[in-house]
């Protein structure tokens, strides 16, 4: 493999897995959502789409944050529009505590040395108005991780939802 002499794929693999762990810890903690955009590259995209639309090549996605600006805007929408996470305590529209369960994770490398990371996930959310946790979504990550020195960031994070019907509205990124 062309890259073998230049980069250590084992290290990159670990960095990609660490990035996923970081991601999960941040999206599962409403207090840390400001840290979420920094996990993405400058020209990154974050897309949440149903399997139905993905497979029919229909462009409508649940979320299409196709620039770093829109990724940063998501934090503004969460905090300022929806008042979620405590900053505007009187406006908790849907003060959910999310919980991702992720795995297995598989990692491959592209010719250019990006890591292609796939993983299964289930996301629950626990909301104030309900005693039982709610199963929000089940699906698959299809991510592209790029590396700059020792730092790994998402060039693309694509979240594919198995069902066509979302079980609930949601605040924090999947």
């Amino acid at each position, binding site marked *: 493999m062309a890259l073998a002499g230049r980069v250590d794929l084992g290290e990159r693999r670990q960095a990609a897995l660490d990035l996923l762990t970081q991601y999960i810890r941040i999206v599962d903690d409403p207090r840390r959502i400001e840290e979420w955009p920094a996990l993405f590259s400058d020209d990154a995209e974050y897309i949440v789409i149903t399997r139905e639309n993905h497979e029919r090549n229909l462009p409508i996605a649940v979320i299409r944050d196709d*620039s770093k600006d829109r990724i940063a805007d998501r934090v503004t929408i969460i905090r300022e529009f929806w008042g979620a996470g405590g900053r505007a305590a009187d406006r908790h529209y849907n003060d959910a505590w999310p919980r991702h369960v992720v795995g297995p994770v598989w990692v491959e490398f592209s010719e250019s040395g990006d890591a292609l990371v796939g993983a299964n996930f289930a996301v629950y959310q626990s909301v104030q108005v309900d005693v039982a946790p709610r199963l929000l979504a089940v699906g698959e990550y299809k991510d592209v991780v790029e590396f700059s020195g020792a730092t790994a960031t998402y060039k693309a994070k694509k979240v594919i939802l198995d069902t066509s019907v979302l079980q609930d509205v949601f605040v924090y990124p999947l």
Partner: protein
Amino acid sequence: MPINASRPGGTNSKARPSASRARRPVAPDGLRRIRWPQEDNKIPREIFTDPDLFRIEMDSVFTGPVWVLVGHESEIPQPGDFKTLSIGAIPVIVIRGANGRVGVLVNACAHRGTRLVEGPSGNVLRGGFRCIYHMWTYDTEGRLIAVSLPDDFPAEFRKEDYGLPRARVETYKGAIFATLNDAAPPLLDYLAELTGGLDRVLGDGALRFLGSIKVIFRANWKLYVENIYDGYHVTALHTGFQVVRLRSHGGERLVPNYERNGHLWGRSKSTPVNELTPALRDMSLFDTRTKPTTDHNMMVVFPSGVVTDYFDTIQLRYVIPLDLDRTQIEFAFFGRTTDTDEALWHRVRQGPEVLGPAGAITLEDAAALERVQLSATARGENVVLKGTAKRFPPYRHVDEAPIRHFYHAYRRLLGFPAPDTQKADGR
């Protein structure tokens, strides 16, 4: 079940229950316990929590003399293309037949009732619908065309008697409407003056389907629909509009044809994007690029269709009651066939980010309606105040008064006593 659906070529008279029964629904004894106040601005909370009422609504409203919005022709462009949804509790298949005509078939095998198609969409031009259970097969018109091993069937068995029930279907500028009731008037009579608003959104009907997103709201279907009539909540609930200082500069809430059908046509003109506070780095969410002005239309085709062109987002919504406290909303997004690639992509990027399950201006409705539902067991009445000094449309775009007309139409269908429209308390 008062379905007056016709069967293609059917001679089975049992398939055609009398229209008169469907035309005159009478609230059964069980519903007398629901007390509607005399004033028409008070809504008893029991109507959101009563399981008997929910079952009756599925017949009296959704299979009553109404036209239910079930899709747009661009969702099923090719012969054999279909999509599935429900009209109230009745699962249906919306299909473009082999002959190119749009039909709506009940999604239940005529033999022993098996759901024929499970998925949300597909194409059956080849092969038709084959039931998995005993392999009966129907064509795109719902005609039964093949039966497995019929040798010991009763002598009088005729395939023609076992087609799938079909709804009456009419389209308006590409929007597909279906009714399961013979007493429904012609679609144009039903839509009446609402066509003025529909024309603005649907144009000549040449739309391009971009995809849809479905989500479950944890609220009764009426709470979802009445929320569209409510102009009062818009600036109060939707903080995003406050953050960017987006206001409505005039507009009105019409209830065209309110005496009969209770549709809503809300019109408003909003602050142009270059005058908004740029709270987001990408303000295209609030941009209007494909229309000459920032006038938006938001319509309800009673009882359960929503049509809007908010900003550049052309959207149809299909409201499907799943249970007393769970309602599925399908947000279907469209472009125009005349759109440039750039305009189309702008619509793709804007629509779901504003008006969709993860949209900046949608989540709050879901949260509010869920909370209304949660406390509906408190009994008592919800009250409509803003704008009720006026008895008749047009209302101001910030009024909630139009909600009353939704319930007028609803009460008529269910056979609840009519309100005293001269009385509106609390003013």
